[in-house]
Each structure stands twice: as C-alpha cells, then as structure tokens.
C-alpha cells in the first residue's frame, strides 16, 4: 500500500500483480465463462453460479450475426490482464468465430476450452463438462507467476451513471484530481462518452499533446453530436434544469471534469490499449451512419469498453446511486450526493458528498480516491465486488480503426 506521504519514491512497486505472457500484469486472476450467443447463456450462467464466491465471471455476446466489434471486444476481454483463463460456450450454429477466439486466447498461454452444446449433448452434459474444466482451470491459474506492479503499470477508467446535480460538483472533479495524481505517477487513465463532451470540443482539443490529435478530439465530439441528433436523443432533459444545470455545456462539464487537468495523450476506440502513461479519451460513438441504435445502451456497456481498453479498475461516479459492478475489473463507487451516501453507504466506496457538506475539499477526496485505487489494486474488494456484482453487456457496434494522429509518439 502506498502511504499518504508523497515523498515516497514515485514508481517503487508496492503492489503484486499477476504476470501475463504479454508482460502486462493483472490485479485480479479470474476465469471468464463466455457465451458466444444468447442460446448458450443459460448453460454459461449455470456453470458460473456453481462457483459462487470464487473468481469465475460471466461475460458474453448475445447476437447470432457476425460483428467485427464484438469479435474484438471478446478477444480483448478474454486476454485482459485480470483474466487467467477462459471457457467459451457455443451453441454450435451461431456466426461467432469460436475457433479464432480460442486460438487467440491460447496464443497468450492462458488455459482455454470450448464447450459446443450441440456436440456435447445438450444442457446438462454441457454444464457438467464446463464445471469440470473450470475446476481444473482454477487450480492451474493459482500458479500464475506474481510480479511487483507499479502504479505506472495501471490502467484506470472512469464512467458516470445515475447522475444528478451533485455529480459534476463533487465526485467528478474529485475523480479528476485522482486522475491527475495517477498520471503524475505514470499510470494510463481513460475517460469516455464523447456525446457528453458537446460544447467542450475546443477546450478539450486545446489539451491535446499535438494539434493533429486536437483535430481528432474535436472531430470525435462532432461525430457524437451528429449521431445523437440522428437518434433523436434530447441531450438536455427538464430534470437537468430543475437540478440547476442551465446549458448543454454545463451538463457536459459534469462528465468532462472527471478527466482532470493533464494533457490528453491520445484518442482510442474500444479495444485499443494505451501503451504508455497519460490521459486518453475513449471514443465510444460508432463510425459511419447510425446502424445499431444508441452508442451504449447503459453504463455497463461503457464499462465493458473501458475494460477492453485494459482498465484494471473503474472509477464510477454517481449522484442518484447506481449499484452496478462489472465482470473482470473491480468497480469503485464514488458517491456525489451526501443524502444518497447516507441511504446507500454499503454500495459506496468513497463519499464525495463530504465536499458538499464542506467537510472535505475536492483535493482531499481526490487523494482518498487515489488511495482507494491502490487499496483495490492490492486485492481488497470494492463494495460492488463484495456484494457480488458482475454485470456485463456487449451489443452490436461498428468502428473504423483510429487514425495515425490519434496516438502521437
């Protein structure tokens, strides 16, 4: 654990990570059970449910039609540093390329197996076969080598959900301070939701490390504005004004101020993993004409994308009181509203509502969030983890690869 003494040497490894073959290190060591079509979901869930309390997580893609984005997401998730091995659940006739996914996982040295329900002989035999494999795999991954893990090797994502008027004035700026501290210590940090950056494209572009990246950041917000307009999605609800928000720019800063004050080092898309320290914007809005509906149907769809970009841990700010966690990476809840905190404290890791009660400064809560990241990275369960939350959502989307200006050297 890092102490609150800032004089301690910067990148001295204080944590132990699970060392993976690509050199990345995990803060958790779980088996994912991944269904490759909704038809295999029940079998996958039955397998996972029989390992309650053990690190076995359920993920999956429900669609029967092929989708390059879903392929890439599943690949990145199954080879995430927090994942030690994967069991794939196939019905047998879906479009998902189970062979390629299994090959890609095997290449990383992780244990992987595929249960094809139609070949195995139906529901019960597939559940039994899957359970047997997971039992063996858990023993196998217990021997994964451990290695010192520096703060500079962490990837931390942030998302907000269940927001109210307090989110943008307590929890979100405090996450911004924590992000600044993490970047100073050499970590990679990721913020997202370009649809909630409308009005801030110039402010944000000015923070880019190169003018070319600045153009890309601005273009991503313009794309989001167009996409949401096509969705007919009102970006400003009457409740926002009731809560004290006056303009779209003001609503956007609630989301934006989670990014802190660091320069923006790059623009990434779901599945792109930052390879060096800095602050990155994750562009979550699909490219091309709107095809599959809203960019992300709920908070967990965004969390899954942050994790596919390598996030070891997610900082989730909420005012009204979201309770969700996630498969694969721990979710840390930062509660913006002091009244919500009092009602739902068991679900909340950090009470940023103290800022509104003038009992703590934004800086102090920022430091508390930073310490909580290190605590959770050292193995302590976050509230949502200890309550058993492992939500996961993955839907259809389409992206073009990022351009050459998006990750300046």
């Amino acid at each position, binding site marked *: 654990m890092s102490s609150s003494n800032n004089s301690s040497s910067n990148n001295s490894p204080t944590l132990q990570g699970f060392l993976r073959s690509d050199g990345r290190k995990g803060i958790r060591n779980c088996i994912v059970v991944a269904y490759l079509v909704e038809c295999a979901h029940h079998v996958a869930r039955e397998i996972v449910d029989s390992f309650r309390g053990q690190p076995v997580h359920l993920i999956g893609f429900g669609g029967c039609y092929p989708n390059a984005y879903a392929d890439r997401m599943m690949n990145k998730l199954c080879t995430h540093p927090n994942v030690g091995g994967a069991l794939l659940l196939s019905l047998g006739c879906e479009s998902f390329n189970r062979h390629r996914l299994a090959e890609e996982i095997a290449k990383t040295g992780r244990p992987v197996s595929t249960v094809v329900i139609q070949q195995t002989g139906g529901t019960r035999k597939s559940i039994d076969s899957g359970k047997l494999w997971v039992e063996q795999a858990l023993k196998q991954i217990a021997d994964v080598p451990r290695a010192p893990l520096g703060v500079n090797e962490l990837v931390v994502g942030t998302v907000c959900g269940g927001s*109210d*008027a*307090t989110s*943008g*004035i307590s929890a979100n*700026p405090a996450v911004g301070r924590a992000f600044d501290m993490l970047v100073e210590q050499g970590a990679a940090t990721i913020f997202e939701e370009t649809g909630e950056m*409308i*009005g*801030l494209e110039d*402010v944000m572009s000015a923070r880019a490390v190169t003018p070319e990246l600045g153009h890309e950041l601005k273009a991503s917000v313009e794309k989001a504005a167009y996409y949401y307009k096509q969705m007919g999605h*009102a*970006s*400003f609800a*009457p409740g*926002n*004004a*009731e*809560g*004290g*928000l*006056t*303009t*779209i*720019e*003001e609503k956007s*800063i609630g989301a*934006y*101020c989670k990014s802190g*004050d660091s320069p923006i080092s790059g623009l990434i898309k779901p599945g792109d993993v930052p390879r060096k320290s800095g602050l990155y914007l994750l562009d979550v809005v699909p490219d091309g004409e709107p095809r599959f509906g809203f960019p992300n149907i709920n908070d967990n769809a965004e969390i899954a994308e942050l994790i596919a970009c390598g996030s070891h841990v997610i900082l989730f700010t909420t005012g009204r009181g979201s309770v969700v966690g996630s498969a694969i990476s721990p979710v840390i809840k930062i509660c913006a509203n002091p009244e919500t905190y009092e009602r739902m404290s068991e679900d909340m890791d950090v009470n940023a509502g103290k*800022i*509104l*009660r*003038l*009992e*703590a400064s*934004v800086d102090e809560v920022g430091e508390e969030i930073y310490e909580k990241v290190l605590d959770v990275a050292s193995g302590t369960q976050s509230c949502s983890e200890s309550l058993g939350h492992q939500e996961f959502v993955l839907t259809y989307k389409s992206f073009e690869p990022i351009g050459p200006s998006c990750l300046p050297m």
Partner: protein
Amino acid sequence: MQPEGKSRKLLRIHRDDNVLIVVAPVRPGDRDVIDGCEVVFTQNIAIGHKVAARDIRAGEKVYKCGVPIGSAKEPIPAGAHMHLHNLKSDYIATYTLDKDHVFVK
C-alpha cells in the same frame, strides 16, 4: 474544512470560475461572504444551483469547473442566482419545461 469567515453555503470548484455552487439551501435575507465581500441574498436558491462569484458583465463568458458554460445575457451582480433567465448556451438553446409543463426555450 472551510476556514472561519469563508462561505459555508457556496463552493468554488475551480480557481478560474466566476460562479459558485450552492451547497446548502439559501433563503432571502441570508448573508454570506464571497472572496471577502459580504453579499445579501434576495431569493431562495436550491442546492446544485449557481450564483455569481463577482459582478459579471453582459456578454461575459461564464466559467464553471474552469471551462466556459455559456455567456451572461445581462449584467449579473455578485451573489445573484444564475440560471436560464440570465445565462445562455453558446451552442444550442436550452429547452426545458415551464411551470405549466410546457416546453420553452
């Protein structure tokens, strides 16, 4: 903790801000201190809403969290409530519901 003599109802988020956030309900006649100057509030202002941190000129950019959130429609004195009546977006007009639940700009 806020030092003595500083506001207990208003919060400055960023050093560049010219608005402060109401963190405890404000009532008419309440007095508070903004950057060393006393202001007297003339109306109820709810938590989460904004007041001017200093006198703001008509057309001046308004900053919250260190970034512009629009422009002043009219001169706004320090301590005045800032909302749809005196602050406008520089991008897209804000539509909201009036007291009769009708959409208004």
